[in-house]
C-alpha cells in the first residue's frame, strides 16, 4: 500500500517526535496508521463534505425556512418524544433484564441472554414488519390491546415500541458488565450495618450503576432518534402525528428536494454528533472517577 506508506512518511517528516517516539518497538505503525486514516477519510469524512457543500449553497433564510417548517418541527417533536419514552422504558426494563441475568440463575437464562442481542443482529426492516404485524389491530398483541382500548399500530405509541425494540440491547449490555463487577463485600458491609435491602440498593448499588445506566439510556436515545426501518412500518407515518424526522428526510429526497433533505439531515446529524461526543466525554469522565484511570 504505497499510499499508506507515503502518508506515514509525511507524518514522520513533519512531526518527527510523533513519528519516532516508541512506535519503533512494535512494528506496523505506519501501515496501520495509513490504512486507518485512508479508510476514515474516504468512508467517514469525505461524505460529510457533500452535505456541507449542499447546505452552504443555501442561504440562511432558506435553511431556516426548511428546518422550521411546521411539518418538520412536528416530526422533531414526535421523534424526540418517542425516543425519550423508548429510552426511559429501556432504562427500566433494560436494568431489570441485566439485573436478573447477572444476579440469578433460572431455567432458560442462557436463551434470554442470547436473545437480548436479537435487535442488534436483526435487520430493521424485518423488525419493522414483524412489530407491525404483532401490534396491528388484528395482530397477536393488537387484538388484546385494542380490547383494552390501546391502539399501538399507526400511532406514536407504535413508534415508541419500535424504538424500544431496536435499542434495548444498548442498555442491557452497558449495565451488565458494571453489575458483574459489583463487589459483594460492599453490599455485605451495608447489610451487616443493619441496612434493609431497599436502602442498600438505593445507597450502595444504584450509585455504582447509574453512570452506566445513563450511558446506556443515552445510547438508546441517540440510536432511536435515527431509527428508520423498524419505525416506518408500524408508525402509520401520518404527517404531524406519527412521522419521524428520518422519514421526512426520505420524503424530501423522493420529491428530489435535495436541499431541504440536506437541511433537515444536517440538523439530525448535528444532534447525533453532539450526543455522541457528550456520551464519549461522559464515559471518559465516569470511568476515570471509578477506576482512577
Amino acid at each position, binding site marked *: 500500500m504505497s499510499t499508506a506508506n507515503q502518508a506515514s512518511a509525511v507524518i514522520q517528516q513533519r512531526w518527527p517526535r510523533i513519528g519516532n517516539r516508541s512506535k519503533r*518497538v512494535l512494528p506496523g505503525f505506519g501501515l*496501520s496508521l495509513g490504512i*486507518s486514516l485512508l479508510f476514515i477519510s474516504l468512508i467517514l469524512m469525505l461524505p460529510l463534505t457533500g452535505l456541507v457543500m449542499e447546505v452552504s449553497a443555501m442561504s440562511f433564510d432558506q435553511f431556516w425556512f426548511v428546518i422550521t417548517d411546521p411539518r418538520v418541527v412536528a416530526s422533531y417533536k414526535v421523534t424526540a418524544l418517542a425516543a425519550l419514552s423508548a429510552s426511559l422504558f429501556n432504562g427500566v426494563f433494560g436494568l431489570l*433484564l441485566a439485573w436478573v441475568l447477572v444476579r*440469578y440463575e*433460572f431455567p432458560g437464562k442462557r436463551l434470554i441472554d442470547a436473545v437480548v442481542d436479537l435487535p442488534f443482529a436483526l435487520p430493521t426492516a424485518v423488525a419493522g*414488519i414483524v412489530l407491525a404485524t404483532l401490534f396491528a389491530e388484528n395482530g397477536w398483541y393488537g387484538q388484546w390491546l385494542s380490547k383494552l382500548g390501546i391502539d399501538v399500530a399507526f400511532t406514536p405509541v407504535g413508534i415508541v415500541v419500535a424504538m424500544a425494540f431496536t435499542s434495548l440491547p444498548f442498555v442491557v449490555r452497558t449495565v451488565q458488565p458494571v453489575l458483574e463487577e459489583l463487589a459483594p463485600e460492599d453490599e455485605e458491609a451495608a447489610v451487616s450495618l443493619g441496612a434493609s435491602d431497599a436502602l442498600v440498593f438505593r445507597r450502595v448499588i444504584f450509585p455504582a450503576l447509574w453512570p452506566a445506566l445513563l450511558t446506556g439510556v443515552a445510547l438508546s436515545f441517540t440510536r432511536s432518534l435515527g431509527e428508520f426501518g423498524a419505525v416506518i412500518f408500524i408508525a402509520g407515518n401520518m404527517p404531524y402525528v406519527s412521522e419521524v424526522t428520518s422519514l421526512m428526510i426520505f420524503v424530501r429526497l423522493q420529491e428530489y428536494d435535495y436541499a431541504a433533505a440536506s437541511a433537515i439531515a444536517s440538523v439530525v446529524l448535528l444532534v447525533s454528533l453532539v450526543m455522541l461526543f457528550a456520551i464519549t466525554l461522559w464515559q471518559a469522565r465516569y470511568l476515570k472517577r471509578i477506576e482512577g484511570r
Partner: protein
Amino acid sequence: MNASQSSRHRRVGDSPAIKWLLIVTAVAVAIALLIMPLLVIFVEALGAGWGTLADNLTDQYTLHAIGLTLFVAALTVPLNLVFGTALAWLVTRFRFPGRKLLITLIDIPFAVSPVVAGLLYLLLYGRNGWVGSWLADYDMQLMFSWPGIVMVTVFVTCPFVARELIPLMQQQGSEEEEAGVVLGASGWRIFRTITLPNIKWALIYGVVLTNARAVGEFGAVSVVSGNIRGQTNTLPLHVELLYQDYNIVGAFASASLLAGIAVFTLAVKGFVEWRQTRTLNRLQTEETA
C-alpha cells in the same frame, strides 16, 4: 461464585419473593418483546404452507435480491475486516496524539441515522455531487446501482470489527508482542503467530456481526438504491416491497431468511463467549505447585 445460592452470602434482592417476581417479569418482557417477534416471523412465513414458502424463496426477484445482498456482503466484510483490524492494532498498540479522537470517530456510524448516511453518499456521489458529477463525465454511475449500495453498507458497518477487537486487545496488553520483537520476529510473524491466535474468536464474531448488519441494512440502502426490482433491490428492500404489496407471506418468507442469519449470529456469539469463559476458568485454576 454464585452468591445467590449460599444463604450465608445473601445479597440484595435474593429473598425468594422479590427474586421470582423480578425473574418472571423480566422473562415475560423478554418473551413478549424479543422471542415472540422471532417466532412470529417464521410462523407467518409458513402461513401458507411449506410449498408456498419454497416458491417464495425461489421467485426470481427474491433470488436476485439474495444474490445482490450476498454480493454486497462479500465485498463489505473483507474491507471492514482489514480496516477494523488495522485500526484496532493502531489504537491499542501505540500512543500518539489523536488516538482518542480516532476511537470516537469510529462510533459515528452508530450515532448517525441510516437515512442521513445514505443521503451523505447520495450528495457526494450522485449526479450533482462534486465527485459524482466528475464521475458522470466518465460515464460512471455509482448511485442507484450496486457500487453505491456497497459503499453505504461499508459506512454503516465499519465500526463492528474494530469495536469487538479494541477492548480485547487493550485488555490483553502488548507484552506478548513485545516479547516477540525482542526475540527477533518480524512484524507479520508477530501478527500471525502471536496476535491472531489471541484475537481469533473476537475476530470471528466481528466478521459474523458485520455480515449480519451488512445483509440487513435498510435505511441507508433505501436512499441510494433506486429500488428497482430485479436490479437494485437487496433482500431487506425486497421485504419492504412485498409488504407494501400486501404479500405478507412473501415478505415474511424473505424475512425469515434474514432472521435465520440473525439467529446464526447470536449462536456464534454464544459460542465465542462460552470459549472465552472456558479459557478464563482454565486460567483461574492454574496455580498448582
